[in-house]
């Protein structure tokens, strides 16, 4: 069944910007209606101010524990020696490169389908953070590859598909800023983000589909982990810490973006009155 959303743009004095008001009676279902509860920037800012410290401080604490454990307390690998400690940075960065892209795609979908005004802003802020973590993943992979493989880079399926992911992030950032009309930029970037989702299964299964120099998955949902528990714990702790940090960064940047939009709206309103 196809639902037609009835909406209009209206100037909202409280938020000092133009908002898309959706006729609640025309909304298709309760889930999408509840999403629009957070379309109000004032409500989002109040909620985000409460959530921000609950992400930031645990992220710092968990990361400190995980990194110290990984760097000084976990054992060296019998084959790789101490270079295995690069794993505690590389694996969380790789996880966040993919998970960040999933969140970017979800925000883009919400922006395209429901025209959620905060989804545009969130997608715009996820892009640079995701690109940074993908860059860290590629760089630390090179730093791990040089002593283990004898080379900084190979055109292996896993490495190449992650490089494509990095370019997708950069393309998204560039498209967001390429148009004078920010709405058109957001829509074009959202379409790119959704098309790029096809790269995620390629990254995941590249080590199974092709004969790659990159090792296979050590941790799976169905099987026992392929590493000792003394290495697994610091890896999981670092992954949780970096994930909380990623969320804290995106939330802080989205808060700033909402405030900047409100400032622009207020200045435009002042200019119109003058």
């Amino acid at each position, binding site marked *: 069944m196809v639902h037609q959303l009835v909406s209009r743009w209206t100037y909202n004095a409280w938020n000092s910007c133009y908002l898309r008001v959706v006729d609640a009676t025309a909304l298709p279902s309760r889930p999408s209606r509840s999403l629009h509860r957070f379309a109000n920037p004032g409500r989002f800012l109040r909620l985000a101010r409460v959530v921000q410290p609950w992400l930031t401080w645990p992220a710092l604490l968990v990361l400190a524990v995980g990194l110290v454990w990984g760097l000084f307390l976990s054992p060296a690998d019998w084959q790789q020696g*101490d270079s295995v400690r690069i794993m505690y940075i590389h694996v969380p960065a790789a996880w966040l490169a993919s998970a960040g892209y999933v969140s970017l795609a979800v925000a883009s979908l919400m922006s395209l389908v429901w025209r959620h005004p905060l989804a545009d802003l969130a997608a715009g802020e996820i892009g*640079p953070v995701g690109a940074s973590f993908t860059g860290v993943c590629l*760089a630390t992979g090179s730093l791990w590859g040089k002593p283990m493989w004898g080379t900084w880079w190979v055109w292996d399926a896993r490495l190449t598909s992650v490089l494509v992911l990095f370019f997708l992030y950069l393309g998204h950032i560039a498209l967001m800023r390429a148009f004078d009309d920010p709405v058109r930029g957001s829509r074009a970037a959202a379409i790119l983000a959704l098309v790029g989702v096809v790269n995620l299964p390629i990254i995941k299964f590249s080590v199974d589909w092709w004969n790659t120099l990159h090792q296979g998955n050590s941790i799976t949902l169905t099987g026992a982990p392929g590493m000792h528990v003394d290495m697994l714990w610091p890896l999981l702790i670092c992954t949780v810490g970096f994930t909380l940090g990623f969320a804290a960064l995106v939330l802080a940047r989205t808060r700033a973006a909402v405030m900047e939009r409100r400032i622009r709206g207020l200045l435009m309103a002042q200019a119109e009155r003058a």
Partner: protein
Amino acid sequence: MTHLPFIAAAYTLGVGVPGLLAVLSWRRLNLAKRRLAAIDPRMSR
């Protein structure tokens, strides 16, 4: 510790890049808060 330069470089990147992003985000957020408080009196309540 074997391969120390590689490990040190990886940890510098792993801590430095998110740390730099955090500092820039914090500064941007504070600037936006100050500018908004200056032009929107409701924000200073």
